[in-house]
C-alpha cells in the first residue's frame, strides 16, 4: 500500500516539476511589468523543439545545443517585446495581455510550419534505469527537472533581490512612472524581462521534453497549468510558483490514484479555486501587496 502511495507521489512530483518550471516564467515578466505573458507556454515549446533540432538534427554536443537553444529563445523573447509590446506604447495591461495571446498563436503557427505536428523527444540527460525507492520508481530526468527548478529559483531570487537591475525591474512593476522619475530605463527593463522569461521557459522545455515529449501545440496546456501554479502560490513569488506547481501535480496524481483518473483535472482545479477563495493573493502572496498592483 505504501509503495502504491509513493508511486502516486513520484508521479505527482514528475508532473508538478513541469508545472513549477513553467509557472516561474510567468513570474519574471509579471514581476517587472505586471503583464501575464500568455505566450509563456510557447517559450517552453521552443526550448524543447530547438533543443531537439540542435542536438538531433545538427548533432551538436549537449551543452552547446542547450546554450544555443536558450540564446535562441532569448532572442525570440527580445523580438516579441520589441515588435509587439514596445510599439504599443500603452499602459493598458489588458491590451498587452491580448497581444501576448496573439503572439502565442503566431508562434504556434510558425512552429507547426517548421516542425510539423509530430511529437519530438531526445535522450534524457543521464542514461540509465529509473531509481527504485521502496518499490516505487522515479525517472532520473525528474530529479534533473527538480534540480534545475531549484537552481532557477536561487538564481532568480539573487537577481531580483541582490542586483541593481533586478531591483529596478521590481520597481517598474509597482509604478512605471515613479520608476522613470528615479532614472530607471523602463523600456530596457521590460525588454530584459521578456528575454529572461523566454530563457527560463526554454530551460524548462529542454528539461521536460525527455519526460513528456514536445509538440508544437503543447504550449497552451503548459501555460494554463503553469499559470495555475503561479497564482496558487501567489503571482510574483518565485517559490510560490514552485510549491504551487508541485501541489497541483501531486493533487492531480492523488486524485487519479484514489478517486478516478477521469476526475484529476477537475479536482485539482476545484482545490485551487478553494485556496483562492480563502487566500486571494495565493499561498505565499500578501494581500496588502496584491492590492497595490493592477493585476
Amino acid at each position, binding site marked *: 500500500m505504501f509503495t*502504491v502511495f509513493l*508511486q*502516486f507521489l*513520484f*508521479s*505527482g512530483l*514528475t*508532473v508538478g516539476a*513541469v508545472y513549477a518550471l513553467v509557472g516561474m516564467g510567468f513570474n519574471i515578466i509579471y514581476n517587472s511589468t505586471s503583464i501575464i505573458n500568455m505566450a509563456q507556454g510557447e517559450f517552453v515549446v521552443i526550448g524543447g523543439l530547438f533543443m531537439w533540432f540542435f542536438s538531433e538534427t545538427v548533432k551538436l554536443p549537449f551543452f552547446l545545443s542547450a546554450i544555443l537553444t536558450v540564446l535562441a529563445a532569448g532572442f525570440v523573447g527580445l523580438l516579441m517585446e520589441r515588435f509587439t509590446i514596445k510599439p504599443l506604447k500603452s499602459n493598458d495591461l489588458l491590451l498587452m495581455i491580448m497581444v501576448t495571446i496573439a503572439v502565442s498563436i503566431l508562434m504556434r503557427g510558425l512552429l507547426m510550419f517548421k516542425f*510539423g*505536428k*509530430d*511529437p*519530438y*523527444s531526445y*535522450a534524457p540527460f543521464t542514461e540509465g534505469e*529509473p531509481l527504485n525507492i521502496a518499490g516505487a*520508481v522515479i*525517472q532520473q530526468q525528474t530529479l534533473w527537472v527538480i534540480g534545475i527548478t531549484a537552481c532557477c529559483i536561487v538564481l532568480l531570487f539573487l537577481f531580483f533581490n541582490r542586483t541593481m537591475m533586478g531591483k529596478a525591474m521590481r520597481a517598474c512593476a509597482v509604478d512605471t512612472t515613479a520608476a522613470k522619475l528615479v532614472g530607471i530605463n523602463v523600456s530596457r527593463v521590460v525588454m530584459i524581462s521578456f528575454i529572461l522569461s523566454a530563457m527560463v521557459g526554454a530551460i524548462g522545455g529542454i528539461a*521536460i521534453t525527455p*519526460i*513528456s*515529449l514536445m*509538440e508544437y501545440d*503543447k504550449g497552451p*496546456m*503548459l501555460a494554463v497549468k503553469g499559470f495555475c501554479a503561479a497564482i496558487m502560490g501567489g503571482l510574483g513569488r518565485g517559490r510560490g510558483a514552485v510549491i504551487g506547481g508541485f501541489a497541483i501535480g501531486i493533487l492531480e*496524481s492523488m486524485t*487519479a*490514484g484514489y478517486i*478516478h*483518473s*477521469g476526475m484529476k*483535472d477537475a479536482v485539482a482545479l476545484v482545490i485551487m479555486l478553494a485556496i483562492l477563495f480563502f487566500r486571494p493573493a495565493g499561498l505565499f502572496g500578501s494581500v496588502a501587496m496584491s492590492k497595490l498592483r493592477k493585476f
Partner: protein
Amino acid sequence: MRFGKIMLSVVMSVMFVSLLFVTAGAAGKEPIKIGAILSVTGPASFLGEPEKNTLVMLQDQINKAGGIRGANLQVIIEDSKSDETQAVLAAKKLLEKDNVVAIVGPSTTGESMALVPIMNAAKTPLVSCAAGAPITNPVSEREWIFKTPQYDTSAVEAIYTYMKKHGITKVGIITIATGFGDAGKKALHEIAPKMGMTIVAEEKYGPKDSDMTTQLTKIKAAGAQAVINWSVGPGQVVVTKNWHDLKMGIPLYQSHGWGSKKNIELAGKAAEGVIAPLGRLVVWDKLSDKHPQKALLKKFESDYKALYKSEPGTFGGHAYDSLMMVVEAIKKVGPDKKKIRDYLETGITKMPGTGGVYTMSAKDHCGLDAGAFEMVVVKNGDWEILK
C-alpha cells in the same frame, strides 16, 4: 482607371490560361469532380493532413495515367477545420456549387455523422475516412453512406482473440480523453463479455499529460493480466515509457493507432514487446508476395514517402481507400451518383485496399472485419507479425 484596366486584363488572361490547362489534359472532356471534406487544420489535423496529401497525390497519378474514362479527375478538397458546422457548409458547397458526383471524408466520426442526413437527402454517395460504427450502421438509414477505416470493434476483437490464445482474461484499460479514446473504451466494453474477458480497471488521461504511472500502478494493483492503451499522439509513447519504467511484469497492448515508426523511435527500447493490432500498411514488407495487398501497399507507401518525405500512416491509407473505391466505381459505371452508390454496395468484392480486402454488401457498408488486422509486436526496433 488605368490600373483597373490592367488588373482586368491580367485576371482575364490568367483565367484563360488556366482554362487551357484544365482542358488540355484529357481530350477536351469535362473533368469528373469528386469532393473531399477533410480536417486539414484544427485538432484533428493529424488525420486530415496525410489524407489531403494522399488525395492530391492520387489525383495527379490518375490524371497522368490518362484520367477516368478519358476525362480528368478533379478532387475538390475543402477544409472542415475539424468542425461539424464547417463540414456541413463544405458539403453544401460541394453539392450545390461544384456538383460533385461523390464526396470523400470527413476525417472524424462526429463530422461524418453530421453529413449523414445531408448526403441521404442529396442522394450523393459519401465514403467516410472515419472509423466510428454509427457512420454506416444501421445501413437501412445510411443508404448513401460508406466508410473505409476498420471498425474499432474489429481491432478490439483482434486483441481479445490474441489474448485468449495466450490465457489472458483479465485486462486493465487506459484510454485518452478524446473521441478516439472514448470510442475505443466503448468498443472494449462492448466486446469483452462476448469473448469472456473481464475489464478489472479503467483509467483515463488527457491528451497532453506527461506522466501516467499513477494510472498504470492502479491497473497493476487491480490484478490485471495485461494493459490495453487506446490513444493516438504522444500519450501512447508516454504510457509505453511509464510501463517500461514500472517493470509491470504484464504485457502492454496498444490500439491500431500505434502503427507509426515514429512511436518506436520516440519510445526507444521501452517499446520492445508492445503488441498492437495494425493494418498491413506498416508491415507490408513482411507480408508474403502472394498477399493481395502487398503490391498496392508498397507502391502507396513509397510514392507517398518520395513526395512528402514522411509516412502516409494508417490515416493517409483511409483516404486512399475511399478515393480509389469511388474511382473504381466511376471507371465501371460512369459518373452517375445512383450507379456509383449501387456499384459501391454490390461491386466492391475482394477489392484490396490499404486497410484490408474490402467486400461491401447491402448489410455492410464498411466491408472489413477483424481479418484486416495483423497482431504486430515491436522487436529490435522494428515490427514483427505475430502468428
